C-alpha cells in the first residue's frame, strides 16, 4: 500500500518536471530583432559666394590692372583698367565657394561681351575696329567658358567646396594698329548662377 502510494508520488513529480521542462523550452523559441533610432532635418543654410575681399589683378605688359573688390555675391573691378598696347592684359583669379550646408550646382554662366566705345568723338578712331583685338576670356574650374554652362563638365559645388574662376581681358598681340584715343570697353559683366543640387 505504502509502496504504491510512494510510487504514485514519484510518478506525479516526474511528470510535473517533464511538463515544466517542455513548457520552458517552447517559450524560449522566439527571437526579437530590434532596430531603434531617429532622424534630424538640419537647419538649412544657403550661401554660395565669392571668397575674399580684395583680389589683386595680374598685369602683362604695361596694362594697369586695379584691384577688384569682392563682397560675397559680386566682384567689382576698380576703375582705371587700361590696356595700352597689343599684348597687354589684366587677369583676375577668383574663388567661388559653397559656405552653406546645401549642395549647389551651377545652372548658368552669362559671360560678358566686350563692347568698345569711344570715350570722345574722334573721326580718326572707330571703336568697332578694335573689337577683334579685344579678347575677354572666362575660365571656370580650368575649363574655358566657350558656350555658357554647356562648356562645363562638372557643375556641382557641394557644401564646403570651391571652384576657381579666371577673368582675363587682353589687347591681342596680333593687333596691327592702336587707337588714337582711349576706347572704353564695356559689357564685361559676367554672371554665375547656382541652385540647390
Amino acid at each position, binding site marked *: 500500500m505504502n509502496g504504491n502510494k510512494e510510487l504514485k508520488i514519484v510518478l506525479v513529480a516526474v511528470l510535473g518536471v517533464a511538463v515544466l*521542462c*517542455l513548457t520552458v*523550452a517552447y517559450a*524560449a*523559441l*522566439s*527571437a*526579437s*530583432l*530590434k*532596430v*531603434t*533610432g*531617429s*532622424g*534630424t*532635418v*538640419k*537647419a*538649412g*543654410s*544657403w550661401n554660395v559666394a565669392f571668397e575674399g575681399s580684395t583680389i589683386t589683378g595680374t598685369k602683362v605688359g604695361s596694362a594697369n590692372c586695379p584691384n577688384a573688390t569682392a563682397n560675397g555675391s559680386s566682384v567689382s573691378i576698380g576703375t582705371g583698367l587700361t590696356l595700352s598696347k597689343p599684348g597687354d592684359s589684366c587677369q583676375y583669379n577668383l574663388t567661388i565657394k559653397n559656405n552653406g*550646408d*546645401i*549642395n549647389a550646382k551651377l545652372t548658368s554662366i552669362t559671360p560678358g561681351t566686350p563692347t568698345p566705345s569711344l570715350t570722345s568723338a574722334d573721326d580718326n578712331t572707330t571703336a568697332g575696329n578694335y573689337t577683334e583685338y579685344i579678347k575677354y576670356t572666362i575660365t571656370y574650374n580650368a575649363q574655358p567658358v566657350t558656350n555658357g554652362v554647356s562648356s562645363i563638365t562638372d557643375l556641382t559645388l557641394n*557644401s564646403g567646396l570651391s571652384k576657381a574662376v579666371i577673368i582675363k581681358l587682353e589687347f591681342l598681340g596680333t593687333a596691327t594698329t592702336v587707337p588714337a584715343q582711349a576706347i572704353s570697353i564695356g559689357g564685361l559683366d559676367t554672371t554665375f548662377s547656382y541652385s*540647390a*543640387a
Partner: protein
Amino acid sequence: MENKGTKIFIIGALALTVVCLSVAYAVLSQTLSVKGTAEVEGGTWDVHFGSVSKTEHGATATYNAGATSITNMEVEFHQPGDYVEITIPVENKSSFAAKLNEVQGKDTALSFEGTSEDIAKVQSDVKYTVKYESQEIKSDTDISKLTGNNLAASSGTATIILRAEYVSKSTVQEMPQADVKVKGFDRTFVFGQA
C-alpha cells in the same frame, strides 16, 4: 486423549495447508512492467541580424549594429532629395525553420520635435519605409501573408530594408530655421518557430 492429539495434528496440518496455500497463492502473482527510455533531441535556436550595410545619398546615417539589435541609428537630412537606405540581412541558423510573426512599431507614425513653424515646413516631406523581402510593412500589413515569411532551418535568410528620405518636390520647399528632430523609426521583428 487420542482425539486431542488428532485435533492438534489436524489443526497443524490445516495450518500448514493454509500456509502452503497462502504461499502458493502469493507466488501466483506476477508483476508485469513496461520499461523503456525517451529523449528530447538537442537543437539550436538562433535567428539574428547579418552584416548591415547602408547607401547614403545626401543624408548620412550612423548606428551600432549587433546580432539582435541595431541601436542608436541616427539619420541626418540636409536638403530635400536626401535619403539613406539601410540593408539588414536576417539569418536563421536554428535547427528549426523560423517565421516572422510580428513587426512591432509598424503602427507608429512619425513625430517631430522643433518649432511649430519648422515642423510645418518639413513634416509632410520626411518619409520612412520598411520593407521585408521587398514588401513594404505598413500599419495594415498582414504579416502572415508576406512571401518569404518562412526561413528554412540552418540556412534561411531574408532581407529588411529601411529607407529614410527627405522628399524633394517640384514646388518651393522652405528649409527649417533650426534642426527638426524626427522620431518613429523603431521597429522590432519577432520571429518564432515555423
